[in-house]
């Protein structure tokens, strides 16, 4: 089915490993913050340890993002990373912001999100140390909501950035922003569940994290199908073929998440100790598969065009 035989003569930008891992950690950073905020909003005090874990994950993942982006600029230009924010045109120095360029908006969003991730992680750490929040509950919630909105952008804009180009595959679909967001949220839920092994109090939220992961993965699966349809309609689906192994890994991750969610939805919240033990083994397996799958889906998308 070729509805629009898109022809591309663009050169590949050689966005490779640094960018792949940037996309991965951007999804994790934004996703973890969003999941943590949702836990704080929808859960009860028993979910607070898992929520704080989410804020803890978000900070280092956010810190890695500009490092990876700067490394991608190469050994000569890396020191000009700040040109993303400030236009240094001689005689016309000004802030650089183009709302129609996802890379420009993303640079500012990353800076802004760094502030939210830092404050929320600090707040979580102080709350762990003192036993209660440093900030007034209402103020903290408003702060989290705003941070989560920026987090949603951070986790999704990387896909929009790829689409806003003239590259085959990337520019032939409008679904990449949604796909990266759903998979980033899935990775975040899986990682929080995985790391709850080292924070026993957080395992009270384990079933819910798996359930949320399953919902996010179901969204991801739908978006993967839409991605395939749109790229096929543009006549560039052939470029996906060499990367079938990566697509298969992505599907394994989604499947693991769905199976894990189904298993945990059947469990009773007051399950026996033995049941909790099984959960932890499941969680490790599911978590690793989901994370590998999320990395694979980004790798498959990035490499398909290049």
């Amino acid at each position, binding site marked *: 089915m070729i509805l629009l035989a898109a*022809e*591309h*003569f*663009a*050169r*590949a*930008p*050689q*966005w490779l490993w640094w960018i792949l891992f940037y996309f991965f950690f951007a999804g994790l950073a934004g996703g973890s913050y*969003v999941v943590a905020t*949702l836990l704080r*909003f*929808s859960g009860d005090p028993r*979910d607070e340890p898992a929520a704080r874990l989410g804020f803890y994950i978000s900070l280092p993942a956010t810190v890695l993002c500009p490092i990876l982006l700067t490394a*991608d*600029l*190469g*050994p*000569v*230009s890396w020191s000009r*990373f700040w*040109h*993303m924010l400030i*236009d*240094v*045109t*001689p005689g016309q120095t000004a802030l*650089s912001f183009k709302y*129609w*360029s*996802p*890379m*420009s908006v993303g640079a500012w969003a990353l800076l802004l999100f760094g502030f939210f991730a830092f404050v929320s992680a600090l707040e979580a750490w102080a709350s762990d140390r003192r036993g209660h929040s440093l900030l007034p509950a209402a103020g903290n919630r408003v702060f989290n909501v705003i941070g989560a909105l920026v987090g*949603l*952008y951070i986790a*999704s804009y990387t*896909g*929009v950035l790829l*689409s*806003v*180009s*003239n*590259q085959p595959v*990337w*520019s032939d679909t*409008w*679904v*990449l*922003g*949604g796909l990266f*967001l759903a998979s980033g*949220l899935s990775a975040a839920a899986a990682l929080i569940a995985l790391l709850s092994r080292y924070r026993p109090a957080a395992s009270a*939220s384990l079933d*819910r994290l798996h359930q*949320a992961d399953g919902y*996010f993965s179901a*969204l991801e699966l739908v*978006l993967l199908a839409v991605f395939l349809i749109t790229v096929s309609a543009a006549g560039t689906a052939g470029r996906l073929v060499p990367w079938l192994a990566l697509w298969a890994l992505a599907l394994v991750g989604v499947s693991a998440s769905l199976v894990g969610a189904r298993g945990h939805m059947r469990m009773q*919240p*007051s399950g026996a100790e033995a049941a909790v033990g099984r959960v932890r083994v499941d969680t490790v397996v599911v978590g690793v598969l989901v994370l590998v799958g999320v990395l694979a889906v980004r790798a498959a998308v990035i490499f398909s065009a290049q």
Partner: protein
Amino acid sequence: MPLEIKPGESYGFFTDTSVCIGCKACEVACKEWNQLEGNSPTFLADSFDNTGQLDAQNWRHVKFLDNVPDQSLTSGNGTAWLMMSDVCKHCKHASCMEVCPTGAIIRTEFDTVFIQQDVCNGCRNCVAACPYGVIGMNQQTGTAHKCTLCYDRLQGGLEPACAKACPTQSIQFGPLADLQQAADVRLATLHSQGVTQAQLYGRDDAVYGGLNAFFLLMDKPEAYGLPNAANAGLPSRNDLGGYIAALVTGVLAVIAGLVAFRRRVTP
């Protein structure tokens, strides 16, 4: 009478591929003036073309297209290789300029598209956006490079080196309006001679709002590696769809998260 080059006026190239002989004088003149070292010599086994592509070291590239029938069509009207001196198109609506996050890519006082080397930080967003594969990365400078339409020569009142060197007037430089007029006359002449396949590319605004470096082609644009009007989209065409998809996903994901995290059993 020498051409007077004035800031504030639109300048460009009209490349008439019907008279290109593939001598590559334009490539050499470009490298000479712009002090481009060139890539290491390679044998591409592809016609007489060992340049391969436009990139950071090749700002002019003579394409040789030999995908034509071996047999002559009619006596005196033999089908020959198509040759075309390719270059940055200096698009009116430039994809590279649209996406550049640093403001490095500007439109000059001569209405040409120019990459400021001291502003560019090598993000390669312009490389991903350019629909013509014009821009390349210079590993020594870590920045994006392409044809400047000899910005420095224009500032000095000189025509670009490639146009100056072209022995057949295949590459013509001048005020855009004059070039468009000359192209119309040339096209009419070719059509009157029965060369009906001749067509102008980038002369009007159908492709990227019009090209300051436009062409007379002897085949359809795709044959030369140029997107036709249907495929000539700006990167920003995907902004709205991309963000809407992300927004819908975000709303659904937040609802899903709130449902998943709600407490259903009170201990």
